[in-house]
């Protein structure tokens, strides 16, 4: 059987199936996470909200979406996938999204919803609600020469001095067609994330010399009524930052499901105490990502 190896968030993954969107790694004997295809029996469990399975079972955390796929995550080092759809891209989307979020939480990471880039050898986060343009801005910064570290999920751990570090995820970024057009970043080998959607996965020309980076700024994206092309940066105090960080925890409900809420809140507090928080107010405009990137660069240089 062919085995595939990938590296993300400082973990080596060994998989029975290829995964579009992760960065390949050389084969190793002791992977951190093993992914296999298997059959998972969900009959003892009832659907939540009519489509969701979330159960702590003796074997681990069972997560499934009706008619799409079921996943069993055990001890943060083993994932069994039971695909229920033939659309591989679709179940892998859940694998690299919600399932990866839960897996990282099992591995003791604080997971936040956002992208990150390097400036002055520090990782800077861009957090915000879905559809706010986090990936587009991250791509615009990448085009300006700032290495992209992660797209969508930011995984953080702390050293013994409570200093937060962001772990590098992948060399891929997912962008919608409009962002690709605005940023003139079309590539020959870019692939649709789903056949039916105008969203593409791009492989970036980046080295990722380090596994993790000390955390610098946390930018929180916020839509505000401002004149077109106007932006406002506002420093956040610790309590304000804590509130925004809490709003941007990736798959927060999983923490409750898996009993990790207390640990996560402790890490959020540590992060709020040790990071510099900035609220970035911008307009609804979808065409100003380059300008936003310029303003962020200028802000960081100051």
């Amino acid at each position, binding site marked *: 059987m062919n085995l595939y190896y990938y590296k993300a968030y400082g973990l080596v993954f060994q998989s029975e199936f290829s995964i579009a969107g992760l960065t390949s790694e050389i084969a190793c004997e002791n992977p951190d996470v093993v992914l296999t295809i298997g059959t998972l029996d969900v009959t003892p469990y009832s659907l939540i909200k009519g489509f969701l399975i979330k159960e702590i079972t003796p074997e681990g955390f069972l997560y499934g979406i009706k008619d799409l796929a079921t996943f069993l995550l055990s001890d943060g080092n083993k994932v069994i996938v039971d695909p229920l759809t033939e659309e591989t891209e679709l179940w892998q989307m859940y694998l690299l*999204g919600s399932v990866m979020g839960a897996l990282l939480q099992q591995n003791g990471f604080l997971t936040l919803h956002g992208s990150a880039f390097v400036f002055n050898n520090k990782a800077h986060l861009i957090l915000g609600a879905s*559809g706010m343009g986090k990936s587009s801005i991250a791509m615009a910064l990448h085009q300006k020469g700032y290495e992209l570290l992660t797209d969508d999920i930011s995984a953080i751990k702390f050293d013994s001095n409570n200093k937060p570090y962001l772990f590098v995820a992948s060399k891929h970024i997912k962008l919608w067609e409009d962002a690709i057009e605005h940023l003139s970043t079309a590539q020959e080998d870019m692939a649709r994330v789903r056949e039916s*959607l105008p969203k593409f996965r791009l492989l970036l020309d980046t080295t990722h010399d380090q596994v993790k980076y000390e955390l610098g700024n946390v930018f929180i994206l916020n839509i505000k009524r401002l004149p077109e092309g106007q932006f406002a940066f506002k420093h956040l105090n610790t309590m304000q930052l804590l509130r925004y960080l809490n709003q941007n925890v990736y798959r927060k409900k999983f923490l409750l499901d898996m009993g990790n809420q207390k640990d996560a809140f402790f890490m959020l507090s540590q992060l709020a105490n040790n990071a510099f928080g900035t609220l970035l107010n911008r307009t609804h405009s979808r065409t100003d990502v380059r300008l936003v990137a310029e303003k962020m660069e200028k802000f960081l240089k100051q």
Partner: protein
Amino acid sequence: MKHLIWLASYPKSGNTWFRILLDSILLNDGAAVDINQVQTASLRIIERQSFDDFLEFGSGELTLQESNSFKHKYYLDYGLKATEDTFIKTHEANIKVDNQQQLIPKEVSKLCIYIVRNPLDIVCSLANHYVVSTDEAIKIMGDSSYTFFKHEKGITSNIPEMIGDWSTHVSSWLNTKGFPVILIKYEDLLCEPIQTLRMVMKELGQPMSDQVLQRAVDNHSFGQLARQESKHGFREKVVASGAFFRKGKANSWKEELTKRQIEMVIHHHHQVMDNLGYSTDINQK
């Protein structure tokens, strides 16, 4: 318990104005309200983040059909969690999802107040709002797949709302089964605001004195709303358009539409217009 009260309409039919009036009547004793601080019928339900939190996965990579299917469950869950009567403003058509149930779950819906407006007037308002030609606005109103917040090449921070064409939109709500739908004509709200609001408040089980109703109407004329918008902007205006609050008049189409354009609108929508008592005489101008 059924707690959801839907404030539904095709876009540019007076839903926002009506919601401001309700806010003034129910929460402010008829006093003037800040158009950017309206509490009645929070729009948070259409925020993508709320939808994603419910799904526990990202909705951005769902097809429109998948999104609609999950949205029915989302509204159901929202209604099951409501502990008191909750207004929801919507432009969704109450279409069938998965070829089965209607999008709006009857199990948790107490009532719908459906606001309808003469489509000839909507055309003019829509053209201004979307900064498109009148012909393009007519086309939008006849487009059975028309969807709000659907970006052909990307996503927005709101979830897509299935609008459809004007006739289907109206029919989808007026033929709703499982909870009552109260029909209000925009034109009645303009010409007979007190009688119309009195009827609505009675249906809501919250009768108010005519003084409160009158105060609310006096404090929220289109001129006053337009002045607020011009001074402070309007955060619910999601497209780069002209003013959200424009004329607010009935029969503007008589000055703004050509005979050909009137014919086009009537051709598309005559059946529903007839049912609602809007004239379909193409020579009426």
